[in-house]
């Protein structure tokens, strides 16, 4: 039995239907399936790796290697909401590094750390395709990804407070 398939059967079948029915096509479902798994608690568990490998007919190593390669997959639990601030060149030219430091200072954490209540993690990430609206960040959570652009420290702390309340 595959608990993942039991729980999300219709959704997983719809994903598999996008790709060719033979073996190579099944493997294409691996990335969409990891997003489904991350909805549960924000990271891909060892058990989920095994379930995904079974559905996609690949090894657990093949699944696990993707978690390390792609930055939006996580193999370990962390803050529920990941605030990912872009500090690449165009954003840095518009004060993104200062913004990131101020945000961390206000939250009492360092970049890459999570607040003591376990809710907010702050990360520095690569380009988010919002260079004209810097400073900006995205919030990755089990529910998905949301952009917040043209930010100030005040507006960012508002977002944080709403996330903490939710």
């Amino acid at each position, binding site marked *: 039995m595959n608990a993942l398939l039991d729980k999300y059967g219709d959704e997983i079948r719809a994903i598999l239907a996008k790709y060719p029915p033979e073996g190579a096509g099944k493997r294409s479902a691996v990335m969409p399936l990891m997003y489904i798994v991350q909805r549960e608690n924000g990271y891909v568990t060892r058990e989920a790796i095994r379930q995904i490998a079974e559905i996609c007919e690949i090894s657990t190593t093949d699944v696990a290697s993707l978690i390390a*390669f792609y930055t939006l997959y996580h193999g370990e639990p962390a803050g529920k909401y990941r605030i990912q601030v872009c500090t690449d*060149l165009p954003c840095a030219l518009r004060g993104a590094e200062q913004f990131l430091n101020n945000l961390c200072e206000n939250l009492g954490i360092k970049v890459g750390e999570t607040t003591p209540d376990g809710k907010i993690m702050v990360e520095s990430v690569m380009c988010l*395709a919002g*260079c*004209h609206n810097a400073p900006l960040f995205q919030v990755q959570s089990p529910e998905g*990804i949301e*952009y917040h652009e043209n930010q100030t420290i005040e507006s960012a702390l508002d977002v944080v407070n709403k996330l903490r309340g939710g």
Partner: protein
Amino acid sequence: MDVAEYILLRHRDIPGLDQIETYRQNGGFEALRKAITSLDPDDVTNEVKASGLRGRGGAGFPTGLKWSFIDGNKWPHYVVANADESEPGTFKDREIMEGNPYQFLEGVAICAYAVKAKDAYIYMRGEFWQIAHKLDQCIKEMEAAGYLGDRLFKSNITVRLHTHLGAGAYIAGEESALLDSIEGKLGQPRLRPPFPPAVGIYGKPTIVNNVETLSNVPMIIQRGAAWFKSIGTEKSPGPKIFSLSGCINRPGNYELPLGTTFRELIFDHGRGIPGGHRIKAIMAAGASSALIVANEQALNTPMDYESVPSLGAQLGSASVIIIDDTVSIPWLINKTVHFFAHESCGKCTPCREGTYWMRHLTERISKGEATMNEVELLYDVASQMKGKCLCALGEFSIEAPMSGIERFRADFESITVKSNA
């Protein structure tokens, strides 16, 4: 100074263009109807060829020519739209998909018809999660209205579109890495040849085009190649979206004819440099750019695929980052090298090791801890990577360091120390 009519950013002229009814009322899907009901697939390809449209993702390869390379002896064929937009400084495809999604999807469908593909995948960077949901909804509406699915316009033609989300890897925007990523593998570039029109996803012939490229296609089919050629320059026809960012008063996307000068983009549209500062350098192709010294000659240069190389740089995806005189070039190249070191996929040694060692050097140099000997060493490491990497990522990573050292030597001389003693 604005364009007479938007071709790609049409939502700026027509509010609500992301609604299927509004899109239809404004001529939407007429090009797809025309293609399927009155043109042979090869006629469509020939029209795109005649238009002179060149790939807008960065390489500038002639689009129609690429379509004509599809291997007619192997089936099925696939189309892949590259919506992985991840180059620092590029944010144009995102605006197209958010504001004018149906024109893009219609372009994908026309491409699929032209190369006789039934299935097309839209590979979007994982960060575009919200846009992917929007496109899924658009695709459903097109299916319900009979613009996607089986027996299109009562023909025997089938076209299906599928979105596919990446998960945060710049390298997955490299077309062969993108194909591996769709196949559920690490996004690492393939050895080429064979090229995707011969061996693409699942080993089948595949056409990969950028979002902006495909969004040009409906208008080319509807209005004709001659109309398209009337915009832009002879060798670089058509409109282009320039993403303007960095030290500029009005950052944003500007749709202008190819061949518009840097001066017009920066000073007329972007309203110049903030805080009374002077422009120092221009990066025309995002972080992958060589640094252009922003002198009079550069500012008067037309932004097209032929002219920008005369400045020792490339137009790329036209992500124009403006650098003012407060910016230290050693700091800048440390930023870009960090980006490439982080995004290097690790498959080929020159890029994996080269970006790693360059990063160590640029960190020390930018902190003022290094001597000029280390600047020379950085230049040497970069030179040795040149022409040896498996894909363009490695080659891009050396553009800013090499041009920075060559063209802004004084910045390095002023930050380096005399000796490490």
